[in-house]
């Protein structure tokens, strides 16, 4: 789902950006965050809770709640709701709490 019309903001959605989610190719627009591009593509589950492994989705959208931590280009615990989408990004569902390398 995308917001097409908004009373204040305007979305040009001109330039397409290609990225990968769990190895599969996806498309977003310039100006997207990773989370907004995934949301638009119908991806609703961003991570799973540590103890009960329950699905966690797009929630606070301002980088506070840790509901959307994912591995991006090999880096764990990226808050995809505030991380801008860039060409060729490798976005992956994170298993566990992330391994520092």
């Amino acid at each position: 789902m995308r917001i097409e019309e908004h009373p204040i903001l305007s979305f040009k959605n001109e330039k397409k950006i290609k990225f990968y989610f769990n190895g599969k190719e996806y498309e977003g627009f310039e100006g997207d965050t990773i989370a907004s591009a995934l949301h638009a593509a119908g991806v609703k589950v961003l991570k799973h809770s540590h103890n009960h492994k329950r699905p966690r989705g797009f929630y606070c959208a301002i980088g506070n709640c840790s509901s959307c931590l994912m591995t991006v280009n090999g880096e764990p615990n990226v808050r995809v709701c505030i991380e801008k989408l860039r060409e060729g990004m490798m976005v992956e569902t994170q298993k566990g709490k992330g391994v520092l390398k």
Partner: protein
Amino acid sequence: MNKTANVVIIGGGISGCSIAYNLAKKGVKNIVVIEKQYLASGSTGRCGAGIRMQWGTERNCLLAKLSTEFYENANEELEVVHDIEFKQGGYLIVAATEKEVEQFKKNVALQNSLGIPTVYLSPKEAKEIIPHMDESKILGATFCPKDGHLNPFYTTEAFAIAAKRLGVEFMTYTTVTGITTKNGKVTGVHTDKGYISTPIIVNAAGGYSKIIGQMAGVDVPIYAQRHQILVTEPVEPLQDPMYMSFALNIYCQQTPHGSFIMGRGDDNEPTDMRITSSWQFMEEMAKTCCELLPLLSKLRVIRQWAGLYTMTEDAHPIYGGVKELEGFYLACGFSGHGFMLGPATGLLMAETILGETTTIDISNLDKDRFERGELILEPSVV
């Protein structure tokens, strides 16, 4: 609501709860613990949560050893509801100056003579224990594999629940407003929930111990000092031991949850009761951590907080009664180490109050050692 107790313990941190448990276990009835907020809301719940036997004086080594041995079996002894999360990953204390190298070698000899299995390591050997450290910043290190850290909230709660099973009463959100005495003896405690008459008061009020002392007309030679600490987001297990340096001013551990907890001292801290957080701490802590443990620069900080160290002049606790007021006992001035010494505090204070021979001689840890000038200076404090 007025009542009578045999013992009133002021302070619901690790010390107060441990003393209550030990007294009750020895058969004392009608014990009341008074806590201003909730259990472990003060220094206990704000601490770095480590326990180490690597000390520079025999007294501190023995107190810490007694406590470590207790914590090793605490889940069974206290019949805990929740595991206290005691993780014996060791303490790696790094030496950054020649003076420290010299002192640490003395410390290791002392510790080994007391049965504490510390070893002295080269920077290369130290890096094998914590591979993500920058070993070029250090000259050597000491490591004791039996040191570790545990959860202060679960541990305090475990003592409290065990004490409750033995009949101890806990009054939380209760403030002590005064202490009554008669003919040089303790007679009772005024609180905002009523008066409790009692012949014995134990002052285990942490940073507030001086104020409690003043209520009883006893000058306790301690001062409270803010210490700050921060916690990061969790990651998969990476670091078993507590990493610590006195000269470079850092202690840093990874909790079983995966978050890193780190703190440092600051001699310029005001000696008042404030527990606010400062941006200066955040900046300096991050800088120190990133230099010594570079990999951790990738972690994000979740929050920071502060708590009070209750300092004595010689960085040893004050245990025991006072000559000017019968029935008034002190268990305070832990100088930042009250949590790790909790089990020893409880046992030794219970023995002292009941007039038994103490498991470890604490006669020279009384308040009057400062008047006598018999200080036991501890060289290894962060």
